[in-house]
């Protein structure tokens, strides 16, 4: 019981952060538009039921991956402008998957 309480307290305090993910850079003097692009990064919070749902699997890096995918989808792109962010999620019994979508105009 004591072990459970200690573990529970630790998990109660457990948390995580993605860190700052840069989506648009400093104002640019000029740039060349290369076309629309989009990237998606998904991650899952495991493991159901709710009281055991605290194991992140690729959850914290999803925005970074979505941004990198969007940029790398267009050859020569160095960043994005007119960016749109969106998140979707779905539950699948033993976990909840969250997907981040970063879309925008690829530029260089």
């Amino acid at each position: 019981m004591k072990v459970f309480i200690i573990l529970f307290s630790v998990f109660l305090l457990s948390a995580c952060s993605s860190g700052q993910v840069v989506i648009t850079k400093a104002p640019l003097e000029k740039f060349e538009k290369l076309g629309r692009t989009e990237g998606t990064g998904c991650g899952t919070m495991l493991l159901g039921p709710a009281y055991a749902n605290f194991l992140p699997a690729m959850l914290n890096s999803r925005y970074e991956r979505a941004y990198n995918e969007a940029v790398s989808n267009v050859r020569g792109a160095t960043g994005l402008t007119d960016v749109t962010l969106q998140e979707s999620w779905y539950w699948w019994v033993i976990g909840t998957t969250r997907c981040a979508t970063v879309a925008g105009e690829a530029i260089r």
Partner: protein
Amino acid sequence: MTSLIKMRRLILTALAMMVMGCTSMPMTFPTTLSKDLDLTRGREIRGESCGFQLLMVIPININDRYETAYNQLMSAAGNDKIANLSIEEKWFYAYFGTGYCTLLKATAYPLLNTPNISKKAIEEKLLILKDLRDKQLISEEQERARRQEIVDKL
């Protein structure tokens, strides 16, 4: 036989739940070229909102937390334009569910030739004027003229 029906129901329910989910409102951040911005007057702005996923499936302020953070950021920007946008996601475990917080940070730059008067400063000046008028230290005409001067500076 009964257990087979129960099992089938369970599988169907699980399949139905599997496709359960939601999508947030898309947030769009338009880009402005630097030649149109006063880069000497950039200021950091932020918008933050949290939601809670109760029992893994019940979203409480989960889907609109992006919208709330976005609205906070845009409200902080006012008429200024946004650049250096970054997003940070945080989560915390709370036994009955998981909390998620979204933090948007950006730098707001005013357009070139925008007067350097903040909304707060204008409100303060108008309050001072009203106070002076209430104390009858200035006439109604003087108050009106001063108000007009403030508006003309905008």
